[in-house]
């Protein structure tokens, strides 16, 4: 059944329907109950589910993440919400030292999800716009997902909730209401660890996620008018990375451009570039390049943030330069 939802509506729907299906799923976060959440993802949830399942927490991210971990250890499936991904740093210790390591040390699953509204383009400034996924790429025991479309957002959330491991679910704030698309009704899973080729092509592979997918698709359309066909690989999952899809694409086109909104140094792109160098060296007709934000905090004022963020034009230009190599 084809109907369109926004990215944020898809997340709400996935959350709501999974909570209906599985009574062990509960929510914990700041202002998510009566207030419906800072972004209104959980509007109406308190009415439908009890206060025991939609918990308005104290303002303490360490306690939120820790409590979610404990509840997961005790057999429930908590979905914790950070009001902004930026505040995950207050719960960093809980995630990297407790949630991530628990199963390896003690063989007990930690089936928890942490929802993290991330990303810029909303004039949020340095503490409301960050893309911190790379901090966690380096922590064994976590899974990390970052959907770019409403359909993927819903399916990945369902998969994340059902996964017996701690999953960091990065939802892009700008895409909340700017991304619209077809979303199937009912519950379905988008597998974690599988990328999606959103556009096939033969001349250049653009590997990206989140807002980058939309920039890449638009740039690819423009380039197609000049006879250039780009392949756009939407990672969807950052841990585990879908190496197979990445390498298959790069081996086909011989040119790889990695695009992400997060700062360039030590970002997800660096890991992917290493994977490509090792796995597709002989198929490369050009060096692997990355387009990402510069190594600065996210600035507040519009011209500064514009200069900071990648966009369609920058992606197109980077693609053209790579094609000219």
């Amino acid at each position, binding site marked *: 059944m084809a109907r369109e939802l926004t990215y944020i509506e898809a997340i709400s729907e996935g959350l709501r329907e999974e909570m209906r299906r599985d009574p062990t799923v509960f929510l914990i976060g700041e202002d998510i109950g009566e207030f419906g959440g800072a972004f209104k993802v959980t509007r109406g949830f308190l009415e439908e589910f009890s206060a025991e399942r939609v918990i308005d927490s104290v303002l303490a991210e360490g306690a939120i993440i820790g409590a979610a971990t404990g509840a997961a250890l005790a057999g429930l499936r908590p979905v914790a919400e950070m009001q902004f991904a930026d505040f995950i740093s207050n719960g960093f210790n809980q995630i990297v030292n407790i949630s991530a390591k628990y199963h390896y040390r003690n063989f007990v699953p*930690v089936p928890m999800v942490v929802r993290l509204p991330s990303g810029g383009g909303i004039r949020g400034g340095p503490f409301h716009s960050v893309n911190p996924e790379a901090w966690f790429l380096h922590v064994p025991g976590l899974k990390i997902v970052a959907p770019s479309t409403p359909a993927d957002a819903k399916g990945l959330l369902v998969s994340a909730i059902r996964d017996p491991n701690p999953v960091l679910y990065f939802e892009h704030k700008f895409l909340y209401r700017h991304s619209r698309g077809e979303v199937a009704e009912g519950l379905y899973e988008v597998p974690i660890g599988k990328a999606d080729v959103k556009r096939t092509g033969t001349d250049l592979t653009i590997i990206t996620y989140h807002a980058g997918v939309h920039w890449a698709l638009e740039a690819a359309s423009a380039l197609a008018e000049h006879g250039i066909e780009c392949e756009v690989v939407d990672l969807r999952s950052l841990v585990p990375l879908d190496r197979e899809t990445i390498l298959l694409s790069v081996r086909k086109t011989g040119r790889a451009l990695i695009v992400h909104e997060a700062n360039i140094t030590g970002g997800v792109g660096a890991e992917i570039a290493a994977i490509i160098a090792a796995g597709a060296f002989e198929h490369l007709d050009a060096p692997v390049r990355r387009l990402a934000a510069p190594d600065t905090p996210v600035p507040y004022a519009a011209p500064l943030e514009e200069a900071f963020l990648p966009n369609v034009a920058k992606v197109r230009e980077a693609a053209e330069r790579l094609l000219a190599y």
Partner: protein
Amino acid sequence: MYRYMVLMREFENVILRLYQQGKMIGGAYSGRGNEATAVGSAFALGASDAIFPMHRDLGAHFVKGQSVRAMMLTYLGRAGGLTRGRDGTGHYTDRALGIYGNISHLGAMVPVACGVALAARIKKEKTVTLTYIGDGGASIGEVHEGLIMASAMNLPFILIIENNQYAYSTPIGRQFRVSHLSDRAAGYGIPGVTVDGTDVLEVYRVCREAVDRGREGKGPTLIESVTMRMSGHAAHDTAWYVPKAELKAWEKKDPLATFERYLQDRGVLTPSARKTLAAEIRAQVEAEAEYALGQPYAPGEEVEQGVYAE
């Protein structure tokens, strides 16, 4: 109760000896002086209640039903141990017994324990969650966050601060300004009580009250159990910084000796029975040590397994 206290002491004696012989590597932590707190508190719990024991609460494991063999294998890092060698110092989880494994960042466990308490309430189980922290560990921010959450949400949660006078080499005078750590409870609006941590029956009584309170849905309790760390922070620490006089004074209040006197006074324990019991337990622990030393480690090939749950 006495039996468990003796077991705790004998087990740690053996562990210390193995450490000194190089047969146990890493760190050997002693709970000497903490036996009453560990055993008395655990005794107040029911079989389904949850506990997060620290490294000086060995006795609590046994009270909750853990076997000596399993603990020995775990301490010696063997494949048959409860963590298969992936973590040491009693950092294991045995949900059937209600035992949850700490990490070395002890203060960080407090919110996790809150989560276990929360889960119990969501599941409508009438169980409580007990966790411990030290006089030093209590300075960690996550402890505060956990207490804030537990008190705001009225969770069936108990925190025992084991005030054994020293956090490694830092005496309590350099750690906090209040006279009693239980004073902090007022800041959270919950009951706080200080108890003589060398008196196992007192500890039991206070904990029992807290457990009942939690089970009845009346919320969390903060307990300060005052005792002394009779050994160094770990076997590698001679604790030269502790004034000899202080140690001498606390020796008079040794939890085992105190309880022995109590039991003997009431004719429950005779000197010969005491000797027999001690010998019996010692033999048991020695036998388990012997057994565990002969057991294999997990193979190196296993190192990458188990990062994720399937």
